[in-house]
């Protein structure tokens, strides 16, 4: 299937918007948080995106944004970038670990470094930082001691 076609099909679904093609074989789409779980299920089961490449959490100051990169393991290498906006005060979203096993540690890392809570994750705890570390350091408002001089 062409990238433009399936992005159009996906953009018609509930909660999905802004379907566009970034470059050859790479699409981009925005999904609301409420519709995300059903959207991801369709992505996995009907469109065959069997590989969860990356989950990036972005701190937009006003809120958080999760950027999922999914791809298909074949020689065409179709790829889809899914953006989900999260409010600042309740950064929670349903986990996709039951769909893609590889998303497990990406979600743990997003929790560890950015403080996003994934509901339904089997073992949501810190992965890179030691237990008992205060705060989530990749947030923009995280303050830590650094040297004064600016490069």
């Amino acid at each position, binding site marked *: 299937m062409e990238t433009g076609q399936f992005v159009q099909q996906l953009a018609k679904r509930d909660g999905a918007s802004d379907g566009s093609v970034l470059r050859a074989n790479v699409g981009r789409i925005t999904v609301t948080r409420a519709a995300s779980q059903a959207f991801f299920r369709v992505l996995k089961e009907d469109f065959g995106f069997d590989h969860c490449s990356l989950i990036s959490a972005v701190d937009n100051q006003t809120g958080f944004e999760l950027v999922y990169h999914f791809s298909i393991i074949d020689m065409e290498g179709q790829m889809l970038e899914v953006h989900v906006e999260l409010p600042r005060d309740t950064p929670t979203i349903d986990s996709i670990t039951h769909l893609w096993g590889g998303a497990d540690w990406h979600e743990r890392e997003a929790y560890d470094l950015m403080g996003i809570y994934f509901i339904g994750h089997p073992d949501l705890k810190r992965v890179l*930082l*030691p237990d008992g570390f205060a705060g989530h*350091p990749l947030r923009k408002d*995280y303050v*830590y001691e*650094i*040297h004064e001089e600016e490069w």
Partner: protein
Amino acid sequence: MSRQQVHGNPRLRKGLGSRTSDSATVMEDPPSGDWLTLRSDQFLKWVDEAVYNVAEKTGIRDVVNRVTRPIFNWGLRYSPWPLHFGIMCCALEMGAAGGPDHDTERMGVVYRSSPRQCDVLIVNGPVCEKLRPKLKTLYEQMADPKWVIAMGECAIGGGPYWDSYSVVAGADTFIPVDVYIPGCPVRPEALMHGFLTLQKKIREQEPGYFLRR
């Protein structure tokens, strides 16, 4: 008599740990005089009294030390066994130094995987907050005499991660460092030079080891 007084020797006391102090309160003291039947802590006390104090008072210790010092020193100098412990980039260069091209084994540098068998701890990368307690434990597990080589910029002062929230500003903030090797990464030749510097340091600074406290 408290435990502090029993063991004048701090090195030995460190090795005994807390388990013996529990058993010391439970077990009865064997009859004195027969040193073969003594428990380990009592034996150390006996050695202190019977051997160390006598050797110290009579001056025998100094004499033997002066005679054996070059031998001990020679042995230490040419067998600085480092711990097989890799942190980051410099660990690969440490491996390359041990490889066939550079072959540090000809200088007596034999990598051992247990800290109990090692003399040298090579800190070859940035020490993160999560690693610091483990590295300190590794250092404490090594038997005396021991030396530390800070290999590369990260171990010296944080290197390219100087402004990171999780990297300690240098290994010397929590363990004593003997040799600093700059470089990012340190070339194998520089590591060999570091070992030669360490040999020089051992030759000049190390006292004898006969009944050393």
